[in-house]
């Protein structure tokens, strides 16, 4: 093995220019791929973080996953019921405090009640449909990031202002209102409520900021026309990634439809899968392209070293041993290239993280999100090394398969 390494090292160290070009190719491929991975995952995680921060991890609603079976259907298997008249039922989750206490005993997180309804907000001639969520400020801080998203006022101000509401900055801008102004809320049953803007928040998601309004439980229940009703329980988990699993358990326990944030954003997350696939394809292509530099060098060396290959085989070195020389040469080029590529990748990521971008939609300047992960370096390095070995294997295999007599005769 020492001999093989010795020959391989001699080959690469006596071809400094070629070797450096090969290493540069690998470094570029590795560096830019790491940068791409950091950028893509950074932006994705940033988006998910905003998504997860903006909404509860699990929402328990006062409805069932499937339509309940009619009594006649339960009694007679062959009966098929159609056009069943709706039965008027009081909305809301039954015994919400009992359910919450039960959930708190085992879920890894916390739970808060809310009353959710839709309404129209009317101000200065503008009428905009919104979602009004009644919250308990003391418990809200346990399940959402609303407190930290406040730009004007505090959550507790809901209790101080008459029928106080907190709305998104984007909606306030649309309506032309500011904190302390009064707006008119019109409920589905025609109920009207003059509310004071107690504070403004910014979640970072325009869709939410333009449509979501918070109030105390009381005003929301008034707008619903159902005093004391709790139609939503919102859960926040210590680990958001457990949401799907916990939601299934909650649903099994309570019977109420429990929607995890992943389920609520399934379309968005599936688009991430497509995006990930595209990004991985591009990164794979970059690494593959960079390995062509190695292929080129090993092809050149094996071509130039045909006589050496022949003589080594004639001396009794086995074909695989000679082939291994060129694989090791590629590995040397690959490993050194990868090491420099790691440094380049880190520097590129660092450079990108210093760039800020102005968003005309939100009017804010935010730095580019970069995700630093050792896994990026390990995976990209391993794939690159594999590409280098593959790039060396084929020309080496071809060269070492040549019969030594053919080359010796040719040289003679």
């Amino acid at each position, binding site marked *: 093995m*020492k*001999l093989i390494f*010795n*020959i391989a090292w*001699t*080959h690469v160290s*006596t071809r400094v220019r070629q070797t450096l070009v090969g290493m540069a190719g690998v470094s570029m491929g590795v560096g830019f791929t790491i940068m791409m991975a950091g950028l893509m995952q950074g932006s994705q995680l940033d988006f998910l973080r905003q998504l997860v921060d903006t909404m509860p991890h699990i929402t328990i609603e006062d409805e069932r996953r499937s339509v309940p079976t009619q009594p006649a259907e339960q009694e007679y298997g062959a009966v098929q019921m159609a056009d069943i008249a709706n039965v008027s039922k009081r909305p809301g989750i039954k015994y919400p405090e009992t359910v919450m206490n039960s959930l708190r005993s085992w879920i890894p997180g916390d739970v808060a009640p809310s009353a959710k309804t839709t309404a129209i907000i009317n101000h200065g001639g503008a009428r905009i449909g919104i979602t009004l969520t009644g919250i308990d400020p003391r418990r809200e801080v346990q399940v959402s990031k609303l407190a930290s998203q406040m730009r004007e006022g505090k959550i507790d101000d809901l209790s101080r202002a008459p029928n106080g509401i907190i709305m998104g900055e984007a909606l306030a801008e649309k309506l032309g209102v500011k904190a302390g102004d009064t707006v008119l809320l019109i409920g589905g049953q025609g109920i009207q409520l003059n509310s004071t803007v107690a504070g403004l928040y910014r979640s970072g998601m325009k869709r939410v900021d333009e449509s979501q309004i918070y109030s105390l439980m009381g005003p929301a229940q008034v707008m619903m026309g159902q005093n004391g009703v709790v139609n939503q329980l919102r859960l926040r988990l210590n680990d958001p990634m457990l949401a799907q699993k916990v939601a299934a358990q909650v649903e099994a326990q309570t019977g109420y439809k429990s929607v995890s944030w992943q389920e609520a954003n399934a379309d968005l997350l599936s688009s991430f899968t497509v995006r990930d696939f595209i990004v991985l394809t591009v990164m794979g292509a970059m690494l593959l392209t960079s390995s062509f530099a190695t292929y080129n060098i090993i092809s050149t060396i094996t071509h130039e070293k045909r*006589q*050496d290959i*022949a*003589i*080594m*085989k*004639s*001396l*009794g*070195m*086995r*074909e695989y*041993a000679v082939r291994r020389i060129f694989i090791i040469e590629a590995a040397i080029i690959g490993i050194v290239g990868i090491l420099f590529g790691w440094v380049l990748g880190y520097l590129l990521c660092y450079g990108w993280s210093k760039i800020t971008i102005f968003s005309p939609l939100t009017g804010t300047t935010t730095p580019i999100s970069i995700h630093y992960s050792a896994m990026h370096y390990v995976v990209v390095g391993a794939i690159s090394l594999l590409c280098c070995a593959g790039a060396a294997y084929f020309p080496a295999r071809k060269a070492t398969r040549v*019969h*030594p*007599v053919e080359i*010796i*005769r040719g*040289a*003679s």
Partner: protein
Amino acid sequence: MTEVALQAVDLVRRIEGDVSHTLVNGIDLAVNKGEFVAITGPSGSGKSSLLYLLGLLDAPSEGEIMICGQPTSKLSESERADVRLTKCGFVFQFHFLLPEFTSLDNVLLPMRAAGVMAEGAMRERGLALLGSLGLAEHANKRPNQLSGGQRQRVAIARALANRPEIIVADEPTGALDTKSTEQVFSILRDIADNGQTVIVVTHDPALAARADRRVHIVDGKIAEITERGGAELVSPSIAPCEISHA
């Protein structure tokens, strides 16, 4: 009774293709241990082809080659490589030294490939071989710093590295001047005198005359075998192996 180092039995090497071409055609030959055999013949007669077969560099289409009594026709390519590494040493018309390596490293190459000796012992033997061929002061020079004769002597040292039974040389003096030719041939003669078998292909009749036996090949067949001193031992109709044993 003299021990046979190498024996070829009914050796045929044929190149198959649109037009089949026979390079070696039914050669029987036995070479004794410590014997110096020169293979001569006109260009294209098949002498180099025969040499490559005898050194297991090439595989015969028919027939058998026995090295130290061991049949080789059924050996795999890897096993043939092992036999070449341990039992055969090669010297070619061109030195074929690895250009990036020093003389000593080139000589160490077969020993390192065999991996039997310790590094210190290998270096000691490598230096001793170079010293015995008058190259002690050139041990750390690369091939491009040596003359043609010196390069060929390094190639001979490399061939001797693993103490092979048989040294196979294909026109080793073909690219050398008269002085170097004399030096190289004297070395090969000494090797044979020291008990190793030497088989040399040469165009030079004067050099061939200094071998123990001269095997003259024409059209892939043995045309004549002459012992040192000029006695013709065999005509093509007589089996040469039997004669050599006699």
